């Protein structure tokens, strides 16, 4: 059987217990934009949705198919994104996420995935903004 390396940090465990910011925003809502990252066959698929009003993130929600580190990464990325402008949210780094969650090196791809999903949602939102502006 494949081996699962490393113990999980208290941060990862408590995030997976609480599942802060898990949920769905209505994709039909013009303020809502969606980003996804990962692949189902690869065992990890994340979705992050943002509700953006006047350039600021009002709400961020995730859904995750993946290990606890990727669930925790998506949850934390959403938490950090809320209240930020699109530009500010863009500067959320993979390294900051993994440091806050104390991810071991072999789990860094989980926080990278969360960042990728967040960036997908940010660019989708910018795209909408450009089109409507």
């Amino acid at each position, binding site marked *: 059987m494949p081996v699962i390396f490393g113990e999980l940090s208290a941060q990862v465990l408590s995030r*997976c217990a609480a599942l802060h910011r898990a949920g769905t925003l209505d994709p039909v809502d013009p303020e809502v934009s969606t980003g996804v990252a990962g692949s189902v066959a690869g*065992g990890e698929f994340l979705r992050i949705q943002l509700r953006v009003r006047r350039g600021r993130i009002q709400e961020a929600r995730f859904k995750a198919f993946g290990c606890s580190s990727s669930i925790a990464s998506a949850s934390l990325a959403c938490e950090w994104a809320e209240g930020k402008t699109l530009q500010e949210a863009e500067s959320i780094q993979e390294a900051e996420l993994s440091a806050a969650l104390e991810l071991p090196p072999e789990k860094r791809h989980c926080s990278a995935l969360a960042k990728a999903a967040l960036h997908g949602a940010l660019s989708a939102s910018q795209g909408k903004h450009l089109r409507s502006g």
Partner: protein
Amino acid sequence: MKKPRIYMDHHSTTPMDPAVLQTMLPYFTEEFGNAASRSHAYGWRAEEAVEKARESLAGLIHARPKELVFTSGATESDNLALFGAVANLSERGRHIVTCMTEHPAVLDCCRRLEKSGYEVTYLPVDSTGRLSPEDVRAVLRNDTILISLMAANNEVGTLHSLSEVGKIAKEAGVLFHCDGSQAVGKVPMDVEAMGIDLLAFTAHKIYGPKGVGALYVRKRNPRVRLAPILFGGGHEGGMRSGTLNVPGIVGFGEACEIAGRVMPEESARLSSLRDRLHRRILSELKEVRLNGHPEFRLPHNLNLSFAYVEGESLMMAMEDVAVSSGSACTSATQEPSHVLKAMGVSDAMAHTSLRFGLGRFNTLEEVDYVAGRVVESVKRLREISPLYEMAREQRQGAHAGHLR
């Protein structure tokens, strides 16, 4: 991390039976002799204990005591069987037949042998994990020297038709090695009836100590000759040098005695608990799939895929229960279980698999508790799974389309 309250991972290892521990204890202290010491009673008594254990092992697999070689575990036994057997047969041929779902202890030996000029055929299995004996017959060649097939798979518990493969091997005059790690002591194993020439097994899977195993090496019809892989004092008839692990061997012997005695009752009890666990899960959850053979399966094995929920996150959601998963999230390039892949399970479904291995000390209350934890955790994780949401929307869309 919180210590799991319930252990249900008995394919990985088992706790020692307290009765086994009791028989071992004197051999760490008063009876510490070297079984190879011929000049005093310390040695004689150690040797006597080792020979008694050898009889217990032999009894469990219908062999003769002299046909057993003690090793450090099934990994070493598999290595000794494969490297030891082919070394003496390379003039006859260099072709080996094995199966895609074998344990790495066999597969990695085969890959190594391929590097030194042997040719290995890795036979496929069907969707239940079973190999067809006719496939074995079909790939045999004049230069085939060895067939290596496990008795029971460590992930999905599927049992192969050993007697049929043994018969095919006999007819062709090819040696038959069997990795019995998961089967010996759990289901009846008989090297005579099954035509097995080499059989690897290990104490820690049957409530014995870790770090001690054995290899059965047939002495008659045919007499199997092995080249050693460890050199030194010539212990175990020259096949495995090194001072014997007397306490471990004593514990292994006792574990075999107990296993032989309780097997019918224990396998009936565990398979009924296992079926109860399965039923309870199915009664509350949809889209749960059994990995393995519904019938030809170890009595204590239950391997399930829970669609839309990744295995590691599920294990962590019920961290007070110790089980295993076929998923592995360790790098950007993830390869789920090679066993499930060989059975044709998609990568996506393999990532959602969980293996339950019930054991001697699990109770009905524990089974019911675990069933409850699984149901609750899967429901919770499906609620946050984007795949579950997509599937639900698709179903609703299809339904709406149908109405229109």
